[in-house]
């Protein structure tokens, strides 16, 4: 894993628990992500992968545990469940970019307005500066010519790339990607993965929940297998994906490869 020894990890999660009503979704998850590292999280649906991401961004309020992203740390316990004041939460979230399965673009805004919404509204940036930065980001995801288009006039792949640009516009230290290609037609998956890969190459710290095993193998520095609310196994992609130690990982991957109709790897 890249990252220099004198710097603490970018993300540190300690013993994170989260329940929805009586259903325990996260049962003591701990995870360290070094600066510039890309972690792919795989696992069956209902394993808690998305909930883990949403907790890192504080879109969900963990029941207990610790989360540190960059310099900002939050501790949760039974007596202090709410993560903090609205303002505090907002600042924490702004430092972690999140990309969603269903894009969640603002439909009443153009691509450029989607990208500049954060800088203008949250950071209070000057409009001209925000728009010129927004255009640079749209160009970076290959959509320079779509700045004035509304989401309804964009393909799924284009929408997801605008969503990535929107997250990047806040200058996040970390990008969280929640099954960002799952809602896309197969032929549109590549253009989105290409952008993610480019971010990885530029040294962005990322946590990626994905069903694209091949992609995880290619882009991730480490693969974590989650099942039933815990990280069962974590390690180098080749090790976890090709020679999983844990029986649950093995059976998940076996089923996955069978359903894809390809041989292991």
């Amino acid at each position, binding site marked *: 894993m890249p990252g220099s020894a004198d710097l603490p990890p970018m993300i540190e999660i300690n013993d994170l628990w989260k329940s929805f009503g009586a259903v325990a979704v996260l049962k003591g998850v701990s995870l360290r992500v070094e600066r510039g590292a890309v972690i792919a999280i795989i696992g069956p649906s209902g394993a808690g992968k998305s909930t883990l991401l949403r907790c890192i961004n504080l879109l969900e309020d963990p029941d207990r545990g610790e989360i540190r992203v960059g310099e900002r740390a939050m501790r949760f316990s039974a007596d202090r469940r709410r993560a903090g004041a*609205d303002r505090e939460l*907002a600042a924490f*979230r702004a430092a972690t970019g999140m990309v969603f399965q269903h894009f969640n673009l*603002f439909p*009443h805004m153009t691509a450029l307005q989607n990208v500049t919404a954060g800088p203008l509204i949250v950071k209070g940036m000057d409009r001209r500066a925000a728009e010129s930065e927004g255009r640079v980001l749209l160009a970076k995801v290959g959509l320079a010519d779509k700045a004035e288009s509304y989401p*309804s006039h964009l393909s799924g792949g284009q929408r997801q790339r605008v969503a990535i640009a929107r997250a990047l516009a806040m200058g996040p230290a970390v990008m969280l990607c929640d099954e960002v290609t799952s809602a896309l037609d197969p032929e549109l998956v590549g253009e989105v993965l290409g952008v993610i890969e480019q971010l990885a190459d530029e040294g962005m710290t990322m946590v990626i929940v994905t069903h694209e095993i091949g992609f995880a193998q290619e882009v991730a520095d480490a693969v974590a297998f989650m099942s039933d609310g815990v990280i069962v196994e974590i390690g180098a992609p080749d090790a976890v994906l090709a020679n999983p130690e844990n029986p649950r990982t093995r059976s998940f991957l076996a089923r996955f490869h069978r359903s894809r109709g390809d041989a292991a790897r």
Partner: protein
Amino acid sequence: MTIPTYDWDFSFLWAYRWLILLGLWVTIAYTVGTILIGLAIGLLTGLLRLSRNKLLTAPLVAYVEIFRCTPLLVQIIWFYYALPVVLGINIPAHVAATLVLSLYTGAFYAEIVRGGVNSIERGQWDAARAIGMRRAQVMRYVILPQAVKRMIPPFMNQSIIQLKNTSLVSTIAVADLLYQGQMITGATYRPLEVYTMVAIIYFIVLFPLTLMAQGVERRLARSD
């Protein structure tokens, strides 16, 4: 059984044209006035009802449900005759009428506002909060601009109904169109012509408005 016969004669109404116009003016004034006040009430109530604070929302829920679940006619009579006794003050008819009509339509507007906001997908909140917006900013820049579009058709329908609702204020002697009709009936003993005319006037005012509402609804649907 004999079939009733009647000699229709509308000509006498011409003599009352100014009274009729005055009544129509009062009807429209009450409609527009109570829609505006009701809109302020409904917007505030609908948005505050979204709060997680039960102490805040409970009285608002009570208000909305009491006004939605009792007849408007009963509310008007109660506010005019019973409330003064309860409070020990005199409430003039026009005040009682304005108050009740505003609160009544405000309760429906509140539900329209709440429904419109709740109809926006959860993902919009997630995305807006993920880029660091605070709750009020999410509401103002992301949720409301989309929700207002969805509120417009039911808002227009409720407002059209409100014009007809105002006719009930005639029961407490507010001189609206229906009240003037009753006065003319008392003077001429020709209720059939008078109520026919009143119906036609309401229709002439409302029918174009319903067409307009449908047009707006179609345009909004297309722009989605």
